[in-house]
């Protein structure tokens, strides 16, 4: 466990002479996206059914980073979407808000949404990947391969879901962000790449599995497509796995993976946001 120490964060308390600062937003996929998701072990949480997965691409379109206060005061809002490949070593700089009145901005939100033609790149992403997102109107593109023994399955999934992550908070850093006076705060929008592989939509004890995904390769060509996932009814899967709880209208493995894709957005590490489908 890393030992972390918060830097001194000088805050001018509201009294009419607040000052301003800046906020630098970054994004990071952590080791699960940059490196791999291993087999589950005592040291590391991983796939309990023996798979190891490595991403080749994990492209997301991040936009609408917004600061606001619960009092109703509106702050800056990102207008230009940024396309970033989290497989590239990060954290990756996304955008910066300058001249933000210092103090507590307790409402922070952002979105992972379909790219338009004006979406810009961030970090070391291949131009072709950016173009794919723009022309396809995609919000996410995940590509990789999972290996178990001698078996390897490849996947490359385009997603066009629009998800807003609201009221982001972190138990250690707090709600939103505190903008210092005359200084800069750095805020990380953390993307958890393991969320695609949970075996339950509601249980906090969800495990990482890939067996059902692998078995969805109906034609055995080593490529698991979204159409193949859509052909797998969750009712055909082993009992006790891929529980959906109260989740609405999730019937196929594709529905399930799409549901999970709306949970990848996090905040400053293990912090969370309320995600809303749009």
């Amino acid at each position: 466990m890393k030992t972390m120490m918060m830097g001194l964060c000088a805050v001018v308390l509201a009294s009419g002479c607040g000052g301003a600062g800046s906020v630098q937003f970054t994004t990071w996929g952590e080791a699960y996206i940059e490196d791999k998701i291993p087999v589950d072990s005592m040291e590391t949480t991983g796939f309990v059914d023996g798979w190891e997965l490595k991403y080749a691409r994990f492209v997301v379109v991040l936009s609408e980073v917004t600061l606001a206060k619960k009092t109703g005061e509106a702050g800056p809002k990102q207008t230009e979407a940024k396309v970033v490949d989290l497989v590239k070593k990060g954290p990756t700089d996304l955008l910066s808000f300058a001249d933000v009145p210092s103090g507590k901005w307790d409402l922070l939100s952002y979105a992972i949404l379909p790219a338009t033609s004006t979406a810009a790149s961030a970090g070391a992403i291949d131009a072709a990947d950016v173009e794919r997102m723009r022309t396809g109107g995609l919000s996410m593109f995940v590509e990789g391969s999972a290996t178990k023994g001698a078996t390897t399955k490849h996947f490359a999934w385009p997603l066009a879901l629009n998800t807003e992550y609201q009221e982001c908070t972190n138990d250690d850093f707090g709600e939103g962000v505190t903008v210092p006076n005359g200084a800069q705060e750095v805020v990380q929008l953390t993307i958890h790449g393991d969320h695609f592989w949970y075996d339950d939509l509601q249980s906090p004890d969800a495990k990482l599995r890939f067996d059902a995904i692998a078995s969805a390769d109906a034609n055995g060509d080593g490529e698991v497509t979204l159409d193949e996932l859509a052909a797998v009814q969750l009712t055909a899967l082993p009992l006790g796995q891929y529980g959906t709880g109260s989740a609405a209208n999730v019937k196929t493995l594709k529905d399930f993976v799409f549901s999970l894709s709306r949970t990848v957005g996090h905040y400053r590490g293990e912090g969370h946001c309320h995600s809303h489908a749009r």
Partner: protein
Amino acid sequence: MKRVALLLVSLSLAACGGTAQTRRTFPVVVSTVPGPLVTDSGWAVTLSSAQLSLASVRFFSGEALVRRGPLPWRFDPLGWLVPSAWAHPGHYVPGAAMGELLQPLTVDLLAAETPWGTADGVTGTYGSLQLSLGAEGLRLKGTATKGADSVVFDTGSFAPPAAIEGVPFSHVMDTSAGRVRVAVDLAAILSRVDFALVGSGADPLDPASPAFNGFARGVEDSSVYHATWEAAE
């Protein structure tokens, strides 16, 4: 002195303005969504019995994490298939408790509608409700037909291990007369059931079978319950 008293009385009465919310009660009725019962796998179902055991319903301010139907300015061709979104497994945020009805009820879903009782609540913005089924849960009996095949089935009682959360109910509750209708979509509950996969049997339905798996998932699915406010005429 009289004027002073009047001033003081008026100041006291100035406190009679009311705090922001007020208590109220409203009736709750249970019914079903009309329409043919046809599963996704093509089985047409005729029910002979549909018994639902309810324990409680609670209303919350928090929105369900799904908006029914795409927003007109942002059509998401795939999004409507996956209306629910959880920030993290198990992370539904109900918000403030707005109302509740805590009396058990067993409903014959084949009846027109059944009054459940009178819920206690407060005025304000409602966003969702949570439904808890009783120990007997839902039990359906009937016949499923597909082509020349016919299956007589009894699902047996199934009660989800947890309450059904996040059923959308968007309503700004004031003191006007009305009631809440909770309508159960039996077609949606049975949609996942393939009566060709009943395992060791359909009457009673094999709990290890994919058919029962589909039934159970249907009972838990929050989208099969439709809550609406019906204003009194």
